[in-house]
């Protein structure tokens, strides 16, 4: 592999590149999808190839091919160089890179107990059909439908750069999941409930840990109860948000706005810019004193966890929000140089050999209460007179500067005088990011910390996906605007 990589690095140097890297990668996915008593689809995908990135006279060039042969590597590297040269006419700012250490023989693998690609298909299919059967035991007003699935990814990638690094990594992700639909044929309505667990950077062991067979009946019962749940009265209410829900709010309202490429304007055409502008760094009260947020590409079981990023930077953990104040951004080597940093936080990622590396989110997590023990969601609920407790992620939408957001969920419990009193329906909350995080007046302790996340966080043009986790304890937010989403169209 090293000799293949050196072909690209040598050609790039000879053609005048001040920096070059090559990623040779193989990505394997496995999908197993079922509904009710049927295994619908089993697919294994595999893609293999290489991408070469060069920096010539302060301009990037990237080219890629699926044909891993030395003449093709030469051709592709030359094409990357020619792209960089063609772009000189629109290169108003010279790209500079902050320094990085060299790692001549580095290796990293996701720590897993069971590689999901070694587990038999029949075991996976049997498990999912059991999940479906458990859900279908629950009686509702009409038909009960269950879709369940498992999704696994293994990325094997080799990175080499003109900095002298040669890095080999194997990254594994797993996601067992289900979605239940209960239909009431007489009212013509249907209600849904998805499992609460997220994808995670673990092996097949997560299937036993998530125990979907045990969750399915509870989920089916909740789907049925939603038919007769009270439609929410809109207005300002206190919210207690479980980690299975809160991870997505963190992702959208803290994760994305603190990406430096957005802050600087490089994503203005698609993902957008950010309200968390550079003048706010070090002085902006993003949230209350309870809000401490870290970026962490080393976090155990994180979907974005790796040994090195796709700039060849060793991954790390750092503060993004400290005691409620914005203190730093997520960075890659080129944009860290724009704001005068000495090193990158290591947030570069490309979703395939054919995609260029750019800034993607590391795991971004809300820290549990410091120095306190055993603060649960119920403890936070106990101090709420009129509110809602939300479990699971649902609908999500946020503006291009990450101010105005609206979130749904899976299960909504009405809180009256410190107690959960029954299920609600038609619930979404809508807020403005700094108002929301400054309304946080309590977070749970580490015993109640959970890890949620997304397998398919989209960003960039052409769009790329990134898998990213967000850890958090349950947390409480005062007087948030709750809206009713029920509509009649027939």
């Amino acid at each position, binding site marked *: 592999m090293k000799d293949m990589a050196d072909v690209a690095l040598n050609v790039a140097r000879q053609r005048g590149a001040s920096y070059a890297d090559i990623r040779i990668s193989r990505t394997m996915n496995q999908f197993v999808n079922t509904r009710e008593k*049927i295994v*619908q*689809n*089993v*697919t*294994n995908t*595999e*893609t*293999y*190839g290489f*991408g070469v990135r060069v920096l010539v006279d302060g*301009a990037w060039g*990237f*080219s*890629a*091919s*699926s044909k891993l042969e030395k003449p093709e590597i030469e051709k592709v590297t030359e094409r990357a160089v020619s792209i960089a040269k*063609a*772009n000189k*006419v*629109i290169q*108003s*700012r010279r790209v500079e890179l902050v320094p990085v250490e060299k790692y001549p023989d580095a290796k990293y693998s996701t720590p897993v107990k069971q590689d999901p690609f070694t587990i*038999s*298909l*029949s075991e996976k*299919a049997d498990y999912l059909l059991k999940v479906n059967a458990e859900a279908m035991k629950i009686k509702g007003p*009409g*038909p009960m*439908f269950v879709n369940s699935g498992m999704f696994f990814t293994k990325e094997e990638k080799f990175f080499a750069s003109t900095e002298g690094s040669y890095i080999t990594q194997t990254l594994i992700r797993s996601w067992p999941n289900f979605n239940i639909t209960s*239909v009431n*044929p*007489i009212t*013509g309505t*249907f209600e849904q409930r998805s499992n609460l667990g997220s994808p995670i950077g673990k092996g097949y062991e997560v299937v036993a840990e998530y125990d979907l067979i045990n969750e399915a009946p509870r989920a089916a019962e909740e789907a049925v109860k939603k038919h007769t749940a009270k439609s929410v009265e809109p207005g300002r209410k206190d919210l207690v948000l479980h980690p299975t829900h809160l991870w997505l709010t963190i992702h959208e309202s803290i994760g994305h706005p603190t990406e430096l*490429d957005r802050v600087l*304007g*490089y994503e*203005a*055409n698609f993902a957008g*810019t950010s*309200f968390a*502008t550079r003048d706010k760094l070090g002085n902006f009260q993003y949230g209350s004193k309870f809000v401490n947020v870290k970026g962490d590409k080393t976090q155990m079981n994180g979907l974005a966890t790796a040994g090195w990023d796709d700039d060849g930077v060793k991954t790390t953990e750092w503060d993004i929000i400290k005691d409620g104040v914005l203190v730093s951004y997520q960075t890659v080597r080129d944009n860290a140089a724009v704001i005068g940093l000495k090193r990158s936080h290591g947030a570069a990622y490309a979703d395939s050999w*054919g995609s*260029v590396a750019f800034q993607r989110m590391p795991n971004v997590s809300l820290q549990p209460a410091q120095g306190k023990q055993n603060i649960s969601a119920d403890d936070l609920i106990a101090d709420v007179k009129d509110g809602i407790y939300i479990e699971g992620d649902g609908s999500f*939408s*946020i*503006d291009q*500067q990450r*101010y*105005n957001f*609206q979130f749904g969920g899976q299960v909504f419990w009405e809180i009256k005088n410190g107690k959960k009193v029954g299920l609600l329906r038609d619930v979404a909350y809508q807020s403005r990011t700094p108002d929301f995080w400054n309304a946080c007046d309590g977070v749970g302790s580490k015993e109640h910390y959970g890890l949620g996340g997304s397998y398919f966080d989209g960003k960039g*043009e*052409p769009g790329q996906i990134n898998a990213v986790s967000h850890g958090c304890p349950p947390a409480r937010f005062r007087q948030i*605007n709750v*809206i009713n*989403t029920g*509509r*009649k*169209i027939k």
Partner: protein
Amino acid sequence: MTMLSRSEAEALLKKVLSFSKADEMAATLNGGRTANTRFGVNSANTNGDTDNITLAVNAHFGQRGGVATTNTLDEAGLERVVRAAEEIAKLRPEDPEQMPFLEKQTYQEIKDGFDEATYNADAKMRADGISKTIEPAKAKGLIAAGIFDNQGGFTAQANTRGNFGYTIGSQASYTTTVRTADGQGSGWASAMSHRLRDIEAGAVGARAIEKAEKSQNPVAIEPGKYTVILEPNAVGDLVSNMMFFFGARQADEGRSFLSKRADPKVPGSKGGNMLGEKLFGEEINVYTDPNYPGAPGAPFDGAGLPSRRMDFIKNGVVTNLNYSRFWAKKQGKEPTPFPTNLIIMEGGKSSIDDMIASTERGILVTRLWYIRLVDPQSVLYTGLTRDGTFLIEKGRIKSAIKNFRFNETPVKMLNNVEAMSPLQRITGSERVGDGFPVLAPAIKVREFEFTSLSDAI
């Protein structure tokens, strides 16, 4: 070379199928080139130029099926992926819903879907186009970002029952966002076509610059229900999203906005779907036609069914739902090919200027952003306006206004249409038009519901 000719693709697929030990097998090749140049803060950013071919093999043993894909296409790689698909099929439980592969089909030719120059365009061409936005933006003290991309590729399918199909296509698009230096104004414009020569990068940049300048210093007005003029990208995004829910099975199973409630007075009544029901305004027509000029689709869908012109909504009536081969057989219907393009509301004659002139008080929306489903029962969507939102009073644009979040269902919207423009090919805010041509008009609608204000510019 990743752009295979018909005969090269056919030969490769024959070789793949020759390895088969399954009862039956189908194989699909997708290959070609994708290239792009991005820019931000008036300067080149990332870019790419990638060649790839992916082979997907589907093996059937009785009612068991397995799919495996690869892009390693040497002889050993081909055999390996065939064995992998067969292995999956052997190890999995039977699927009683699995349909046999199609017999030989007849496909129409897509007359004008591929343009050689679009496939071949290089980084210099893209940089020249981009400079037509960056230079005028810089001259005015504005800040531009965007992407110019071009691609071309082929798809070929074959199976052991003798079916074979091949098609080629190309696509180019240019989108740019121009912002004022103080961050108080932002404008967006886009163009997309299967022919690069249709993309006038300078004109797209000029539209974004004009929007950025006009959108400065927006004022806040109260959220609520307004008469709204939605430009084509906003219309195409909302309606395309709704069309994802035109599946017959989901409707028949009672889990779609197109499900019909059961009649409690009729024993055993199960409801069914809303095929044949008038759910939208009289003037609403949505259809697919793979040979529609300027929006080339494909001759076949992913399952190999021949594409054809098919109405989904005609004069406001639901006229077709998507029937998979299994569900069609079960329900005694003809299977429907999955659409490969979408023509939304043809026939409008009004210009956006006409619509503004006829509006006493309303809002002009350039595009919508982060559109997500809130409630599948009413296809209620939320999202936000972005990059050029304006208040109209007494037939004229009065001022830029702050962006809104909306919570609205396209079903209601398509009952409240007052005027439509001619069609335009859209890219969509989240690229719904990528590889799936969508034509949509600008429309004027009453009582569009905005629920909150956004500070985002």
